[in-house]
């Protein structure tokens, strides 16, 4: 059994979240949770389990549950879990253990969005509405981003205090690579997208320098029930750059499903 170690950067500030553990098989895994209400399963980015301003807002009316994906946040990888599809299988186990068998809403950012799409394709009965923020693995027809360290935020000052320590960041990167990342196009995922029939909202920052806009366009065109939304003046990390703008549209979508396109002052 491995004791999950939370990275030092994960301070419990603002809307208090709790850290918990759950036993899956012979091992315990950590997760973060806050709030009461309808559950929302959050799959974090390759940057690890960051408790962002967006999650804080969502937790005001929902029970937000974010598993620390194996290998991230200082935790160990799980032998045999070596790609996003396998990781999605692990998420399904986690969900059954922590949140039960009912279908629920899922939010995934970047790499977490790719895992969420695998989850939705392989276990469509588990996912009610799906929100994706700049998902990786579906940028069909896009040129690879330029080499070098990617610029994640349009407003990096908003990420101050959120980011993990250099040591944890290095292990996050190693875990990301262990799952096959970064991947412009995940062919295995594309082959099974037909199964993703639930309502999907894809969020794309207008300044995203990591996930090409072709990703959102591809999903909007390929999925039968998918809307894409630009968040203006946001980079890859929309939930940090423009948390409030993203919150308004995500909350509306999660509450109303495809009818979120009908104007409502309660969500303006």
């Amino acid at each position, binding site marked *: 059994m491995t004791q999950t170690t939370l990275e030092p950067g994960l301070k419990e500030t603002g809307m208090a979240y709790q850290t918990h553990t759950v036993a899956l098989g012979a091992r315990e895994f950590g997760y973060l949770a806050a709030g009461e209400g309808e559950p929302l399963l959050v799959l974090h980015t390759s940057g690890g389990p960051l408790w962002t301003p967006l999650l804080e807002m969502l937790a005001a009316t929902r029970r937000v549950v974010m598993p620390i994906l194996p290998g991230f946040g200082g935790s160990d990888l799980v032998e045999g879990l070596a790609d996003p599809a396998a990781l999605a299988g692990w998420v399904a186990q986690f969900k059954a253990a922590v949140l039960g068998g009912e279908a629920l809403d899922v939010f995934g950012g970047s790499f977490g969005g790719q895992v969420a799409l695998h989850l939705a394709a392989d276990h469509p009965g588990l996912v009610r509405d799906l929100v994706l923020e700049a998902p990786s693995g579906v940028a069909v027809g896009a040129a690879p981003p330029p080499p070098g360290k990617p610029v994640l935020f349009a407003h990096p000052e908003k990420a101050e205090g959120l980011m993990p320590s250099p040591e944890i960041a290095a292990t996050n990167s190693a875990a990301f690579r262990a799952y096959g990342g970064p991947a412009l196009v995940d062919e295995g995922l594309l082959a099974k997208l037909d199964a993703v029939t639930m309502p999907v909202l894809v969020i794309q920052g207008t300044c995203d320098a990591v996930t090409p806009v072709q990703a959102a366009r591809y999903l909007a*065109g390929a999925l039968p029930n998918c*809307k894409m939304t630009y968040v*203006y003046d946001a980079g890859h990390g929309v939930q940090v750059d423009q948390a409030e703008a993203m919150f308004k*549209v995500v909350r509306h979508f999660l509450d109303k499903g495809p009818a979120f396109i009908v104007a409502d002052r309660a969500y*303006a």
Partner: protein
Amino acid sequence: MKFGFFNLMPWPHYPEPPKVYPTPNRDYDPLVGRELYNGYIDLLVHAETCGFDWVACNEHHFSPYGTMANCNLIGSILARETKTIGLAMVGNLLPLSNPVRVAEEYAMIDVISGGRLIAGFMRGVPHEYIAYNSPPSESRRRQKEAAELVQRCWSEPEPFGWEGEFYQFRSISIWPRPIQSPPPILMSASNVESAAIAAESRAIMGMGLIHNLDVARANVDTYYRVAEESGWAPTPEHILMGASTCICETDAEAREVFAKALDYFHDTLMKPTYDALKLVARAGFFNKQEAGSSYDNRLDKVASKKTIDEMIEAGSIFCGSPKSVVSQITRFKEKLGCGAINLSMQIGNLPVETVRRGMDLFREEVLPQVKAL
């Protein structure tokens, strides 16, 4: 050199300089207005046969200065009544409009005209912000966001939502899409800040109300420099300069009719603009820091009484016989390096027939001498 014919559709019958802002509309006579609109539209259509490369319309509110509250209404008429000439809408005031509506209307003009739209993305002068109840301090941020949204409306292949600082739309998919992908964009470059934004946006830079050729040249230099920094190279046709123009048979006639028309322009038509500017400044907006380098300054210089010769020298006007105007345009081009000039010929209270005669002289005696510049 390319030339445009610009008509801002002024009201030529206001009895005296307006005393309050906004100008009371009790002195607008709709029946006279009907004749005026039709006369002005006839001139715009006539521009095609006079060899102009485009006709230009713009947007102003609450003032006898210009009676086109929405230039797209005129643009759609021109899209039908002309066949080949470019249609420069210079243009919709993006920060004061619904950007999706702008994208739709511009696309309609482009489609109806067979791809002849030049799309002006204008920010608007201060009095428009009073008219449409929008804080002047937001204008640059609104302009930036709206410009990006309009271009997305034209280019996105899938329905898309927009969550911005000023604009929110949950699912946009405009019908029609424009023929040109995308239509050429024109932005104001009246000061160095605007010139830089136009260059970053890869837009045609447009400048009018020139009071000093060296100052105008500095804006052109800024535009070229920022364009190079942004990774592209403008051509001379990206440099559009405007000047008020009066062409008559002789210098003496042109000077006489233009002097009267310019007095009406400055004393009567521009009065609401000055009054509004003072109110905006009094409200605490549009100081030097917010306004950029030169608007108020420039307006004062344009407004200050000058002789016809001084205005020709400053690059504000072309005025005279065809021969004189050829020489003025040649010098203007040498100083500014522009490849496009907008001739604003419906100045002040000039009669429509005087303007039409000037257009004919342009076709017969001016254009053949300056086309190859």
